[in-house]
């Protein structure tokens, strides 16, 4: 069993608040990704879990036991460092066994035995007598992972495990890493700034911004119901369209999709409201439904993307992305019409741009068709 | 090497100053004042020991004298340490360093060019000429004088000399090299040889020993190197005319103008007619020259023929003891190192230092198969002066100035320009 509980973790570096009251429960054997832009505090959080850094306030519990003053190597944790951090002067065998011998106190023979077993499971035995310089990026990553897994720790922490790998390797390795960690039955915590890595590797994702966890959920939850405009913009590719809504008089909102009538009493009428719609929910042509929102604009860029195309449409200064099938071939610089359904439009309101719900649920409707150009 | 020795005299002065600063704080009672020798019969040998430091070229004579002293003064301990280096500058550094830490020797060997350093900073005990042994050539004592007082007893000495290739001269129609006595004759002879061979015929090195060689040329012409008031002595009509020799040789394309060793190599190979050298090098030229090389040393010419005493090089003994009895025993030790037997060991056969004891010369001349050139070195009995004479503190820049002067004239600059310029610089350095 290896569960992690973080209670009210805060950490400051000088005047910079890295972590601001983080609470998080990580379940046994789950794979959790901590996702956020650089400076969001995700690496600090990882280092605090590992024991490389002590929190200013709050507690780290491993299986319910407070880890205060427990040094890194005595925690039931192993780490895969950013850029692998392999010892350049040691062979893979040396890299794997150093910690086993000094940290875990295994004899040389036992350590090498365990290193061979781990390497065999990972099919990297042939790399054991090479030094890092004589290995490719992917091979180094596998050895770094082997070094972590050979500890048989309940928790494996991975700090940006995919950085520095080329795209092809990236995709195959992230699946492999995920698989290996779950085979070991270990709890995996991955820090990454890449939402696709997070989505594909993690059972749950914690999205961080400015030292706080702004949303915790499964990849689907994050995709379907982002808690804020920040999460919405971070999850999914191509990213969600976030268009501002301008409060007009008499409970009306002005958007690039024309004027909207907000029901009385809805906070959505306040300024600062943002409408979010995913590119795959924006369609070319004319709507089949009368309550659809429509707009027309100039095609300024068409990006082929395998089965789909991403089309950039300029709606009088606001660019909206839409995904269409590759059979549709919008002509560059031509004017196109597009539509979307209010039940697919997320409304974010308030100072935190928190999600209020879908436009249809909130009763937002196209007010006057004359507004739609 | 000797160039280096002299050139670093200024550094040593600085070292000595900082050392004496250290010394006075550590042991203010001793200071640098050497003691005058006590009457030796008032001293008990068994209670005394003397410490002496010297360069290895003195070893045979020192060991001989030590034995004699130990017989004469039973119980006297003589702690004689030869430095590894035969370089006088290194020797001085070691003595200065030892003195700074309370291991000041009583009796030291020093290069003659460094006499002023010792007299200016260590106040050595005067040498009493009456104690010197039978046969010692007292005219050489002049080389160990500062002012009117003798502080150094010359031990292994030499002086500038002109080596002449007789064969080359004969081919140019000059049969009697000894007749070349003045600079005019030297230039004429050189011209004749050069006409015949098409090569430069004279080498007067400016690099190695500029102060010694320029002093020799000046004094040989009867002018003073250092004026009576301590300032630059040869910025006179006569002095400039004498130094113009270098310039004339250069302008007439008669000068080889290379280092002494390189000139010596050319001389030994039979390519060079006139090589200015020192008597101490004669033994080596004898050893290295092929048997058929017909050559001879001649007295260094002067402007109007050799007129004055030449400066001495080599080394001698100085007493810097702080204890009157040790000074007395040191004085006695010097005596034993200058006897006939000691002089044979320090100057004969393998060396061509000028023997300082006439009895040794007589003995050497009795030997078989003596090269005639060695005879010149061994029988040199003309008076010699001290080397240098400018105050000790500015030695290095003064030597540099003289080297520059020689080198300027070596490329044809007139002595009327070069000598006054050097005089001005050196007088400024001396504060005159």
């Amino acid at each position, binding site marked *: 069993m290896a569960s992690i509980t973080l209670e009210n973790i805060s950490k400051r570096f000088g005047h910079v608040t890295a972590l601001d009251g983080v609470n998080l429960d990580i379940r046994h054997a789950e794979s959790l990704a901590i996702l956020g832009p650089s400076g969001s505090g995700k690496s600090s959080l990882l280092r605090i879990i590992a024991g490389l850094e002590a929190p200013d306030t709050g507690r780290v519990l491993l299986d319910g036991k407070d880890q205060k003053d427990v040094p890194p190597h005595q925690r039931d944790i192993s780490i895969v460092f950013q850029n692998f951090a392999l010892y350049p002067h040691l062979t893979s065998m040396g890299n794997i066994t150093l910690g086993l011998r*000094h940290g875990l106190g295994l004899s040389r023979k036992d350590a090498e035995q365990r290193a061979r077993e781990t390497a065999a499971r990972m099919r990297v035995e042939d790399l054991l007598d090479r030094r890092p310089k004589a290995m490719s990026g992917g091979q180094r990553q596998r050895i770094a992972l082997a070094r972590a897994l050979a500890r048989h720790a309940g928790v494996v922490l991975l700090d940006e495990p995919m950085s520095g790998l080329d795209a092809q390797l990236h995709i195959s390795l992230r699946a492999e890493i995920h698989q290996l960690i779950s085979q070991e039955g270990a709890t995996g915590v991955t820090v990454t700034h890449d939402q696709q890595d997070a989505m594909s590797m993690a059972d749950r994702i914690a999205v961080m911004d400015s030292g706080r966890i702004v949303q915790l959920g499964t990849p689907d939850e994050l995709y379907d119901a982002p808690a804020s405009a920040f999460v919405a913009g971070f999850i999914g590719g191509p990213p969600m369209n976030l268009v501002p809504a301008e409060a007009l008089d008499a409970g009306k909102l002005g958007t690039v999709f024309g004027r909207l009538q907000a029901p009385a009493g809805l906070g959505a009428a306040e300024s600062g409201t943002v409408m979010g719609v995913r590119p795959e929910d924006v369609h070319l042509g004319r709507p089949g439904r009368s309550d659809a929102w429509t707009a027309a604009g100039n095609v300024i860029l068409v990006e082929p993307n395998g089965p789909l195309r991403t089309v950039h449409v300029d709606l009088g200064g606001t660019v909206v992305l839409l995904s269409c099938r590759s059979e549709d071939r919008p002509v560059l610089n031509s004017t196109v019409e597009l539509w979307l359904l209010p039940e697919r439009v997320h409304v974010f309101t308030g100072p935190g741009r928190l999600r209020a719900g879908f436009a249809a649920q909130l009763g937002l409707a196209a007010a006057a068709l004359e507004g739609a150009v | 090497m000797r160039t280096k020795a002299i050139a670093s005299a200024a550094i040593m002065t600085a070292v000595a100053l900082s050392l004496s600063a250290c010394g006075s704080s550590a042991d203010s009672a001793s200071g640098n004042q050497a003691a005058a020798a006590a009457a030796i019969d008032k001293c008990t040998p068994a209670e005394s020991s003397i410490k002496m430091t010297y360069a290895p070229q003195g070893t045979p004579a020192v060991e001989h004298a030590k034995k004699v002293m130990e017989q004469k003064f039973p119980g006297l301990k003589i702690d004689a340490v030869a430095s590894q280096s035969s370089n006088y500058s290194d020797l001085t550094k070691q003595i200065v360093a030892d003195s700074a830490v309370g291991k000041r020797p009583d009796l030291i060997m020093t290069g003659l060019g460094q006499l002023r350093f010792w007299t200016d900073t260590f106040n050595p005990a005067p040498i009493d000429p009456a104690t010197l042994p039978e046969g010692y050539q007292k005219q050489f004592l002049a080389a160990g004088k500062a002012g009117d007082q003798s502080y150094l007893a010359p031990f292994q000495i030499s002086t500038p000399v002109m080596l002449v290739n007789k064969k080359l001269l004969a081919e140019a129609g000059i049969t009697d090299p000894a007749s070349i006595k003045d600079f005019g004759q030297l230039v004429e002879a050189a011209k004749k040889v050069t006409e015949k061979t098409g090569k430069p015929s004279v080498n007067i090195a400016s690099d190695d020993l500029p102060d010694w060689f320029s002093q020799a040329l000046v004094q040989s012409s009867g002018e003073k190197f250092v004026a009576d008031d301590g300032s630059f002595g040869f910025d006179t009509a006569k002095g400039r005319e004498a130094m113009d020799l270098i310039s004339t040789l250069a302008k007439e394309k008669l000068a080889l103008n290379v280092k002494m060793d390189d000139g010596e190599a050319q001389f030994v190979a039979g390519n060079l007619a006139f090589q200015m050298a020192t008597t101490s090098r004669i033994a080596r030229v004898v050893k290295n020259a092929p048997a058929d090389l017909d050559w001879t040393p001649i007295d260094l010419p002067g402007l109007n023929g050799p007129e004055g005493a030449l400066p001495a090089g080599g080394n001698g003994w100085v007493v810097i003891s702080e204890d009157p009895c040790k000074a007395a025993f040191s004085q006695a030790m010097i005596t034993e190192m200058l006897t006939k037997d000691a002089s044979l060991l320090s100057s004969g056969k393998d060396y061509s230092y000028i023997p300082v004891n006439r009895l040794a010369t007589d003995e050497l001349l009795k030997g078989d198969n003596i090269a005639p050139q060695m005879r010149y070195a061994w029988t040199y009995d003309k008076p010699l002066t001290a080397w240098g004479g400018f105050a000790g503190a500015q030695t290095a820049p003064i030597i540099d100035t003289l080297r520059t002067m020689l080198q300027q004239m070596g490329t044809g600059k007139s002595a009327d320009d070069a000598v006054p310029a050097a005089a001005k610089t050196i007088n400024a350095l001396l504060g005159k």
Partner: protein
Amino acid sequence: MIRLYKPLGLVLGAVAVILSLFPFYWMLRTAVAPADGNALTGLSLIPAELDLSNFARAWDHANLGSAMLNGITVTLGILLLQLLTCIPAAYALARFRFRGAGVLLGLVLACLLIPSQATLIPTFVGLNLLGLGDTRIGLVLPFVTSAIGIFMLRQQMLSIPDAIMEAARTDGLGPLRTLVSVVVPMSAPSIAAFSMLSIFTHWNDYLWPLLVARSPEIMTPPLTLAIFQNADTGFDYPALSAAAAIVTAPVIILFLLAQRHFVRGMAGPEVAG
């Protein structure tokens, strides 16, 4: 134009090599010149005959065997002590945050600014107060640490990525174990370079041994070379050159060995196949 550069570079390189190797060649050339003839007269570029007696004469006359042994003892003693002091000092300055670290680093840098000549005499006086004049310890003691060594190694240790140091922490390596197992091997190029520098400097040092050493038993090689130099009567160039060749040989051999080692260390013994 560009095509011209490569041959030009080769030619310039060859000239540079010849210019820098020629003095060594000439040393060896002079060392085999006939001992009884005149070493200065018309030495040909290629010797017609080899007179190896100079080496035997140099070896005996300068007591080179004992001097070389002394030189090795002193040089390696200095190096060992320097490594023992410089490596921990550099490690502390590079990888630990503690009060006064900046001041200490400043002091190390200040030491680099003081010429060794300035401290020569005070050091000598101090050494004699300790009664260590004319001893091997006296030859070694002033050099037990090196500011340049601390600085060089610190710079190298600074360049070790933080992640490696953290990996060592999570691997359970204490500070000392980290130093021995990680920091020292990763600083090997600088340690090797500094060792070379130290060995060359102290093997060739003349001034300090000249002041300290008096007894023949503790003479170091450069001091013994001085015996062949006598300005009054001329130098014994063949013996001097032979002695110089003997004295420089260990250093040259060491350099060549170290160079091979460097190349191997850089390329790595294993080539990815």
